[in-house]
């Protein structure tokens, strides 16, 4: 037994040395090649004095003139300590509330997140991301992956889920690496069995649904089922407007119906597509809870005017949805028994399924991302150089005009 333990340790050590991820020895997902900062640090640096830049920006804002995006990007690039991270946050806020807010560059946002991660200011990055309306931080896919990965590495699944919520609000689930990472974060969060209030349920449900729509396998369908059922629960409790307000979701009623449609699709799909058992159990518990609360509501209806006010928030159509709840419960029972007889219920938990999926596909998904990132960095550098060039030209032209004006004035004075 000692020999086998030793062998396992040796193989684990060997696996750590290789760059491909293997989850027996590591807690994180993205490989070292993805998260290292060599490519980013290897860019040409534009060394500037932060105090000078801050001074220039303050003066420009006082005079009510627009600040260029180049100044802000230089400020963020030259951050070298934790206090300067806070200063940069202030200047990002000011830039967002200036006429040039549309021109905040992608590389500035990427560099801001990188600097926050480097100087251990991750909660600042998360705060600016959550208040993206006020700070204008809209990261691209690569940056989102880095941020989610750093939270998963530390086991902080709640914050990882807040980042996934931001990705969902931007509908940025295009890259397979983003989809895998977000499903992993959501699966791990749900595996800790947290107590979710209604707004959290809405957020988690929406993220599960939109990320699950991109994947066509067991994991994707289970995520869609779970997402639809959580959203259906919020719909029945609070009405459809509480579901889609402020989120990229469809406004048609009947989320529970759509959840059952996902189960039907899984039952009818020819391949090896299954639904995981714990999602089906979760949906079962959810439906039982909903039917029991609706029974207590209808029995307690005669009491009080407060109940009347609460029910005014729900339309007649929302109440029709509530009336359909028993039908949903019976159809769910039929479909789950059908799935079991067809053998399409996977006994592994959702999190185990996602981990397996990550193990298989993440390495392959990372490679095109890295190549695209490198080419993107080069493009950013070229744009940066162009901007610097343009600024220099404009400054020379302004100098020339000033000289001409001075000369003309001197000539006029002499005459």
């Amino acid at each position, binding site marked *: 037994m000692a020999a086998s333990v030793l062998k396992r340790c040796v193989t684990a050590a060997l696996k750590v040395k290789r760059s491909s991820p293997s989850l027996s020895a590591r807690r994180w997902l993205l490989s070292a090649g993805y998260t290292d900062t060599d490519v980013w640090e290897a860019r040409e640096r534009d060394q500037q004095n932060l105090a000078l830049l801050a001074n220039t920006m303050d003066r420009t804002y006082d005079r009510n003139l627009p600040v260029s995006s180049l100044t802000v990007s230089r400020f963020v690039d030259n951050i070298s300590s934790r206090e300067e991270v806070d200063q940069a946050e202030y200047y990002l806020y000011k830039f967002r509330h200036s006429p040039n807010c*549309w021109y905040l560059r992608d590389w500035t946002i990427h560099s801001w997140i990188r600097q926050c991660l480097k100087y251990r200011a991750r909660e600042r990055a998360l705060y600016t991301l959550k208040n993206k*309306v006020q700070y204008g931080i809209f990261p691209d896919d690569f940056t989102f992956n880095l941020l989610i990965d750093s939270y998963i590495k530390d086991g902080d699944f709640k914050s990882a889920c807040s980042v996934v919520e931001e990705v969902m609000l931007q509908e940025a689930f295009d890259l397979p690496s983003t989809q895998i990472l977000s499903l992993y974060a959501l699966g791990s969060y749900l595996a800790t069995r947290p107590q979710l209030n209604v707004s959290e349920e809405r957020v988690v449900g929406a993220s599960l649904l*939109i990320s699950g729509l991109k994947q066509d396998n067991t994991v994707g369908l289970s995520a869609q089922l779970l997402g639809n059922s959580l959203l259906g629960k919020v719909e029945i409790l609070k009405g459809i*407007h509480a579901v*889609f307000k*402020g989120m990229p979701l469809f406004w048609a009623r009947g989320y529970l119906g759509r959840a059952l449609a996902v189960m039907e699709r899984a039952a009818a799909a020819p391949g090896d597509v299954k639904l995981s058992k714990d999602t089906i159990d979760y949906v079962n518990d959810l439906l039982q809870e909903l039917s029991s609360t609706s029974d207590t509501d209808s029995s307690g209806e005669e009491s009080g005017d407060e109940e009347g006010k609460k029910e005014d928030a729900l339309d007649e159509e929302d109440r029709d949805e509530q009336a359909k709840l028993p039908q949903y419960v019976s159809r769910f029972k039929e479909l789950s028994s059908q799935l079991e007889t067809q053998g399409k219920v996977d006994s592994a938990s959702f999190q185990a399924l996602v981990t397996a999926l990550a193990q298989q596909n993440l390495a392959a998904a990372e490679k095109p991302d890295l190549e695209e990132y490198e080419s993107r960095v080069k493009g950013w550098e070229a744009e940066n150089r162009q901007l610097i060039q343009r600024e220099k030209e404009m400054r020379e032209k302004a100098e020339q005009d000033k000289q001409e004006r001075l000369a003309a004035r001197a000539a006029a004075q002499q005459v």
Partner: protein
Amino acid sequence: MVKKKRLRLIAEMARKIRAYRELKSRPRESQKYALDYETMRRPLTGKMLPVLAWQDVRRESRLFSLLAGMRLFGVGRLFTRKSWLEEHTEPSYWQVTKIKVDYTSENMDHGRAWGVLTYKGKQESEVKEMDKVMYHDWRLVPKHIEQQFKDFEPLPEPPVRYVHYPPLLRAMLLSQHHEAGGGAVAEEPVLPLRRDVLLNKDYFRSQEQERQRRAGTAV
């Protein structure tokens, strides 16, 4: 004799300065369209919103409230209005192309937007400024719903109906036809209820010319 009008230069200058200051102090979009949600009044004018709009104002959002939280302010995304969803079955949406946001608003909540309208399934060809941007009526079309939202089965156009001419005009037409040597007319002259003709100056001029070419009186 009329007394010569005095050149009041300073008054002229004052008038220009007053006009310039009025131009500069126009209220911004964020001030014009700000709303107090408890009393449903606009702080700028003190006027109240119409009562039928109150439920929508509480439940839905303005276009820029949705755009503020999106990358590049949602350029290239589709947006519908709840009133269109309720009225028409065919899809109607705006695709945003250009944004000018009012940066003095707190949550980047106001501004102007331009885009391409598709009304009841028919897409227009030009970019126009979006109207009713400040109405609390807008909904984002999520990316996974876009295709499903855009397909629709167009209803067949109802056939063109025809109607008899008034009796005097009918008699005139038949007699014209007879004089032109047509003989007995097999079918009744009918008037189509839809004419695909743009009624402008050129059309009337061409009609006039054609009428002059024909000689003789009517009956």
